[in-house]
Structure formats: structure tokens, C-alpha cells
């Protein structure tokens, strides 16, 4: 086991990793920017090293300073958290070369799954369903028509060279294809300098369902069930739950096995998440694999009773998985709300100092946060303030509990997205379990 773990991250996840290290009786070093010098994680870590000024590029992304900090403190392992360098294959390699254990998958697996095209190819080779799509970008109406006919309507046209919703067009009928291709290509050219367009099957009301996997270095691997992360705004998740209201036990098993298959084929180790889209008829399609611990990992922890961050450290230290697939038990239902410091009407960041921060408590409530009364939110990083997580014996109790928890959460000094979550939890579609990636959009339009 390691003697000292360096945490190369900030905010709530830095605290989360410190918690796991504390319980494993490992010493902690936190590297931080000047803007975070007085933050809670810095206070709680055994040691702290300032690695640069506020901008992430010069601090949290500065590999040389992070490795140097590990060297001067004698840290023998680095936990990268999520974001920043967590999925940077080069960083994982540098750690390996410097004799510091990177708590996560091998660099080669990070690179393999980081390449989205390569990841899809790998999944297909394993017989895992992949969303039907063109293998190469199309550049003529004829090629587009051919692809679309093979794939089956409705299709979505997407810019090959970029994302963010630009160069995207949904085409429901073949007659509309040529015109849609022309505008999508023009947009793509303007935004990314490349008019190439991918054609992909379009799912009208898909669920985003992801499977948590854990693999050790001795061939052991388990899946820990799913998380439904369909509630998104502009591809940013707001609310997650486990289990998914859209999954039967049979589907859960198929998806779990598919996820493990993909992970094994990638040479994966440690904790990872395989993302799928689920259509209304119980068909699932591989989207991508996230080679890190995720923001929403707590909901899996609540239903399995496992500590995923401790398991990451455990596995990285060369230990074997402490449980078999038949020992994985899912109990009850968990929800997580990501509370961000944003204006709930227009989702613009709301900066400032928290004049009051009083998190909820009581039975079945967990809060992961680095915030406290008096904390000033630095403007340089993401606006995630707190994750409010609940567990209940079933979905109904979990929803009631979350509504209660949100009602007793007091955050003054900045605007937060709590009102959006409260509206969502009251929405009849959400209550009925009819979640999809379009639900939040519709709710926002209705208001």
C-alpha cells in the first residue's frame, strides 16, 4: 500500500479523495493553485504544495509542477480526480516513468478509449452494439443518402471536426436530407473549418445510461450496475440516479456484461464507466468509455455500499478485487443533484461569497462539497458547489427525500440551480420515471 498520496485536483473531489485516504490511513499531499490556497481541501490535507497561479493551464494542468511536488514530498501515488489530467494518457505515462503510481487505468487504456473512433471500433469488434453511423465523414449528397438508407431514419448529421451542437441537423424523412446536409456542412465549415459530416442514427428520446466497472490486474472484473444520467442541459449532467427506472434486471445484466467486455478488450484496470444510449424499445448502444472516477459516483456507492475511491486506491496498489460479481448487491434507490453556482433562469455563472451555506442532513442524506459559510468561489474553475445525494428504499422515497433535502438547503450569497432541481423532481414525467435527454430541455421551455 502507498505511504503518501498526492491529490492533483481541487474542490469537492479533492476532499472526497482525502476522505478515502484518511480512512485508509494514508498521508495526503494536495497540490493547489494560488486561488485555492485557503480552500478546505488545502486545510484538510496533511501537506499542501502551491503549484501555480490561478489559471488551470498554469497549475492543475502543469505536469512538471505536479510531478515535482510529488518528488519533493515523497508521494508514491497520484490521484488525478476527474477533469484536469485525469484522462491525460501522457500524464499517466510520465507518472509511470517517474516511478509514481497513477491511481487509475494504464496509460495505454486511457489512450485507446480516449480516441472515440477507436473505442467504437473496439466495441463493435466485441459484438457490443454501437449506434449505427457512417464510418467516414460524408461529403456529397449521394454518399449521405447511401449512409442514411443503411442506417435507417431518423438520422442526425454531426460535424466530424467538432461538437457543441454546431453542424448538427436532425433528418426524419429522406426528402429533407439534401437540404439539411448543405446547411450542416456550411455550419461545420464555418465553425471548424471542415465541412465533413457524420451520419448517425437519431434516437428521439434516449436515456443516457452508464455502467460502473471495476477491474484488477489479475483478470478480475465486476460491474456495479448502472447510473441514469439522462437529465442534462447542453450535455452537462444535472441529476443522476441509480438504478435507472428504464432497466429491467435482464437488461442490466446484458449491459453490465457488455461494459465489462469492452473494458477487458481495452486492457482496462481500476474504475471506469461505459456509457450507453438506450432507446424506447430496450436497445442499447455503446457511446464511449470514461477512464476516470466520475462526478456522480456517489449514487453507485449508496446502492452498493462500496467506497469506489478507496477501491481505486486499493486496486492501484496491486490488490485484487475484494468481491465477485455474484457478491454485488444493489439495494434501494439513490439520486444526486449537482448544485452549481449559476443563475437558475439563464444558467450563467453566479460569482461571489457564500454568506450562508447550510447543507441538508438527516436520514439517507449525503453531501459532497468543499463549500462553507464565508467561502468565496474563485471564478477560474467550474461552478459545481455541492452534490446532494440521497438514498431511499425505493425511487419514491428517494424523490421525497431529495425534495426535503433541497428544501432545507440554505445557500445565500450566490444564485444556485436548486430551483431547477425542485421543478424537475415535481415534473410528472420525472416522477413517472420517463427520463430522457430531452426532458430538461422541455422543462426549461415550459417555464
Amino acid at each position: 500500500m502507498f505511504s503518501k498520496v498526492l491529490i492533483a485536483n481541487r474542490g469537492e473531489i479533492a476532499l472526497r479523495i482525502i476522505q478515502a485516504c484518511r480512512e485508509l490511513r494514508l498521508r495526503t499531499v494536495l497540490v493547489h493553485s494560488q486561488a485555492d490556497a485557503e480552500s478546505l481541501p488545502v486545510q484538510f490535507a496533511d501537506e499542501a504544495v502551491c503549484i501555480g497561479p490561478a489559471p488551470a493551464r498554469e497549475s492543475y494542468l502543469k505536469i512538471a509542477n505536479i510531478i515535482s511536488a510529488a518528488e519533493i514530498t515523497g508521494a508514491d501515488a497520484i490521484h488525478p480526480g476527474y477533469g484536469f489530467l485525469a484522462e491525460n494518457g501522457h500524464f499517466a505515462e510520465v507518472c509511470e516513468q517517474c516511478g509514481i503510481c497513477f491511481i487509475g487505468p494504464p496509460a495505454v487504456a486511457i489512450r485507446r478509449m480516449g480516441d472515440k473512433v477507436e473505442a467504437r471500433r473496439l466495441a463493435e469488434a466485441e459484438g457490443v452494439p454501437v449506434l449505427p453511423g457512417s464510418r467516414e465523414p460524408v461529403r456529397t449528397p449521394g454518399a449521405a443518402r447511401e449512409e442514411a438508407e443503411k442506417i435507417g431514419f431518423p438520422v442526425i448529421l454531426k460535424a466530424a471536426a467538432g461538437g457543441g451542437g454546431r453542424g448538427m441537423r436532425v433528418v426524419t424523412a429522406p426528402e429533407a436530407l439534401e437540404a439539411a446536409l448543405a446547411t450542416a456542412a456550411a455550419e461545420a465549415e464555418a465553425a471548424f473549418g471542415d465541412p465533413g459530416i457524420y451520419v448517425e442514427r437519431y434516437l428521439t428520446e434516449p436515456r443516457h445510461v452508464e455502467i460502473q466497472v471495476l477491474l484488477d490486474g489479475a483478470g478480475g472484473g465486476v460491474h456495479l450496475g448502472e447510473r441514469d444520467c439522462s437529465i442534462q442541459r447542453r450535455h452537462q449532467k444535472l441529476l443522476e440516479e441509480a438504478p435507472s427506472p428504464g432497466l429491467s434486471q435482464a437488461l442490466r445484466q446484458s449491459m453490465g456484461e457488455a461494459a465489462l467486455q469492452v473494458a477487458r478488450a481495452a486492457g482496462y484496470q481500476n474504475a471506469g464507466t461505459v456509457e450507453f444510449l438506450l432507446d424506447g424499445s430496450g436497445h442499447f448502444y455503446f457511446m464511449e468509455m470514461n477512464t476516470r472516477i466520475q462526478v456522480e459516483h456517489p449514487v453507485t456507492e449508496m446502492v452498493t455500499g462500496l467506497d469506489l475511491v478507496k477501491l481505486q486506491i486499493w486496486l492501484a496498489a496491486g490488490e485484487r478485487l475484494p468481491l465477485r460479481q455474484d457478491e454485488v448487491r444493489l439495494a434501494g434507490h439513490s439520486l444526486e443533484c449537482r448544485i452549481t453556482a449559476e443563475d437558475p433562469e439563464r444558467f450563467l455563472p453566479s460569482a461571489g461569497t457564500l454568506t450562508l451555506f447550510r447543507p441538508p442532513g438527516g436520514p439517507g442524506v449525503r453531501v459532497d462539497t468543499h463549500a462553507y459559510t464565508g467561502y468565496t468561489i474563485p471564478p477560474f474553475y467550474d461552478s459545481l458547489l455541492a452534490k446532494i445525494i440521497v438514498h431511499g428504499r425505493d425511487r419514491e422515497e428517494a424523490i421525497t427525500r431529495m425534495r426535503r433535502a433541497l428544501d432545507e438547503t440554505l445557500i445565500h450569497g450566490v444564485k444556485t440551480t436548486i430551483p431547477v432541481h425542485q421543478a424537475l423532481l415535481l415534473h410528472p414525467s420525472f416522477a413517472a420515471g420517463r427520463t430522457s435527454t430531452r426532458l430538461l430541455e422541455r422543462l426549461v421551455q415550459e417555464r
Partner: protein
Amino acid sequence: MDLKELKALLRLMDSHDLEELEIEAGGRRVRLRRRAATPAGVPVALPASLPTAPAAQASPDESAGLLAVTAPMVGTFYRAPSPGAEPFVKEGDLVQKGSVLCIIEAMKLMNEIEAEAKGRIARILVANGQPVEFGQTLFLLGPA
């Protein structure tokens, strides 16, 4: 007196192994006295309200005409180009802009740290072989 300045003074005490330090500059005075080491595991008591962004005020060093030379990277501080060699600078030395003041070793690379301005070395705040973090004050430079 903000937290950053206090920390710099505490490091000064540490590096020179002082029991007590009293500084008076620019009309302000501070005295720091060391007691027996606290046992490991004593939790850090959070102040009632943690400071927000440090106010832009002149530190006592600057108001006394001293310029802080800070570490631009993380690593190990060395006063000389190699073990046993003469240090680059001593207290009292006059340096030019671009003079090498020290080395910070990071990831097996020796990085020479240069003076940004002409001046006289008033204080060396870090000991040879000591680890330093980004922004840590290494030297105080006085007028030439």
C-alpha cells in the same frame, strides 16, 4: 498583515531556526514566538471566517523598499551550482538583472533562477536543499 505575509515570516523563522521574531516596518509591528511543537493529529481549527482574496496592499517588505523574488516553479532549492561549490549569492551581494541567484531542481532538471532587477540581496529566506512551492519567497532584494 495578511495570511500570506504571516506565512512568509513563519518560514523565515523556520529556516533560521528562530524562537522569536519581531519586525517593525512602515509603522506596523508584529511579534511571533514559537512554543513547543503540537502533537501530530491536532486538527486545524478553521478561523471563523476565512480570508477572501488577499487585499492589494504593500507588504512590510515592499514598503521598506524590498522586492520579493519568488519561486516560478515547484522543486528543490539549491544555493550553489553543484554540491560543495560556492553559492551563487550571499546576503549583501549586489546583483544585476539576469544574475543567477539559485537553482531550483525539478524532475531532475536544474533550472537557474535569475534576478528580475538590479539590487542587493537583503535576505535569503530558504535553506539549501529545501523544497519550495510555486510563489514561495526565496530572496528579498533591497535597493542597489
